[in-house]
């Protein structure tokens, strides 16, 4: 069971689109936003960017039409066929049946965002998948307020366009784009509550390169320049069985993500619990204390570091015991990093970041101290990471 590639794809990654004919029963601005969100489903996992244009030549033209509309594939009125799209080799355009009752964030009618995200999968080169839970399955399965791409969809689109190589939100790393970023690479949305109070519980990368922030019962996915549109969402919906108010999290090189809270920890494979959890931290991470502040896999040596109060521990799964020597050690060894941090992360650009209150620090692995840069650290988490 799996995704299917039609056989063609775009040779460029910065694609443009135009809504040449809008649906007759929806507000145009809302349609713009929903279709941008539908494109971001795919740009979240690849380096594809999608820019809307009002006129002129574009890669993907979008039309809402009724019945016969000039391509020999007539629509059939309400129900039945909802939309169709052409693979890149055939032009990539997407047509939607304007006889449908298109809806936005509603159980009534047919959800425009979900159908559009599916059709744009075709416009990018994906055929139908026989994985029932995949977005690229051919059947419309009703409005899903907690919509998530299935792993099968992610594997399909990354088979065509590769994984996403995120640039540094914090202004570091060699991959910072030298030219101004494209205007609408993917819809980011400022989250007023998070901007007003940018303290976070934890931050981590998933195995497929997405970056998530946890706070209380909710989570946000980060884009290149802020938080993704359509967030926050409930942690319990995306990681079934995981509670809120998580202390620490990291993804290890085995692709599993570990979450810590109080004296317990959980292990997930993607967003599926990977066995019977929670377990006691003392059981799976001997030598590591409860009620942690933060954890990360350090870019300097690939070992796992745990932080609590003014101390830190190094955990090496390949060693017996995994915590050896004179740990805990004073956190002040990480020159310039304060005690009682909130979160720590090895970002996908290879840099290590520490977060406390509304501030963050970028760590220089070579000098083993906080990086020097202009503006200096600490910097505002809200501005540099949350797009406030």
């Amino acid at each position, binding site marked *: 069971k799996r995704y299917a590639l039609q056989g063609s794809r775009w040779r460029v990654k910065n694609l443009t689109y135009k809504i040449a004919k809008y649906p007759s029963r929806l507000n145009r601005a809302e349609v713009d936003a929903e279709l941008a969100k539908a494109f971001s489903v795919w740009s979240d996992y690849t380096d594809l960017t999608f820019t809307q244009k009002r006129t002129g030549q574009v890669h993907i033209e979008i039309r809402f039409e009724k019945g016969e509309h000039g391509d020999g594939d007539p629509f059939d009125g309400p129900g039945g066929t909802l*939309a169709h799209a052409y693979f890149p080799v055939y032009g990539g355009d997407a047509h939607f049946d304007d006889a449908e009752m298109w809806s936005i964030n509603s159980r009534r009618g047919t959800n425009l965002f979900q159908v559009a995200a599916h059709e744009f999968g075709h416009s990018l080169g994906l055929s139908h998948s026989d994985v029932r839970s995949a977005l690229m399955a051919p059947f419309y399965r009703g409005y899903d307020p907690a919509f998530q791409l299935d792993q099968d969809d992610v594997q399909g689109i990354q088979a065509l366009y590769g994984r996403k190589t995120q640039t540094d939100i914090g202004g570091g790393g060699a991959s910072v784009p030298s030219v101004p970023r494209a205007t609408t690479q993917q819809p980011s949305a400022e989250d007023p509550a998070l901007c007003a109070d940018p303290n976070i519980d934890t931050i981590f990368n998933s195995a497929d390169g997405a970056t998530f922030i946890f706070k209380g019962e909710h989570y946000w996915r980060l884009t290149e320049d802020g938080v993704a549109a359509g967030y926050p969402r409930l942690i319990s919906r995306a990681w079934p069985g995981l509670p809120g108010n998580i202390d620490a999290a990291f993804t290890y090189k085995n692709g599993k993500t570990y979450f810590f809270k109080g004296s317990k920890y959980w292990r997930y494979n993607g967003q599926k619990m990977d066995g019977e959890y929670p377990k006691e931290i003392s059981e799976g991470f001997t030598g590591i204390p409860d009620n942690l502040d933060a954890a990360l896999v350090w870019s300097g040596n690939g070992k796992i570091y745990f932080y609590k109060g003014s101390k830190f521990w190094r955990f090496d799964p390949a060693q017996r015991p995994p915590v050896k020597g004179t740990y805990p050690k004073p956190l002040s060894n990480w020159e310039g990093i304060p005690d009682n941090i909130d979160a720590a992360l090895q970002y996908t650009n290879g840099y290590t970041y520490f977060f406390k209150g509304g501030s963050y620090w970028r760590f220089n692995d070579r000098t083993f101290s906080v990086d020097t840069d202009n503006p200096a650290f600490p910097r505002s988490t809200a501005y540099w990471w949350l797009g406030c």
Partner: protein
Amino acid sequence: APAFGETDKAMVNDDAYFQMYLAQYGYLSPSVRNPSSGHIMDESSWKRAIMEFQSFAGLNTTGELDEETTKVMSLPRCGVRDKVGFGETRA
């Protein structure tokens, strides 16, 4: 009236509808879709087409247009074919 978004039930009980459906989505020769051309088809092609659809949709591959199969065929869906070329096996 059928619940919004479902193909009208009366439409689904017509054999020609199933032939058109299977042809439209790549399980039968496209020529079946041409209502003006009479189309005789041998039983094994018809059965195989139904089984391929059932397999793709995750249903029991009975080769018969049973209740479960016709129900899935009545679901609103994308107009792109499931099989990229008639008769081709999926990659």
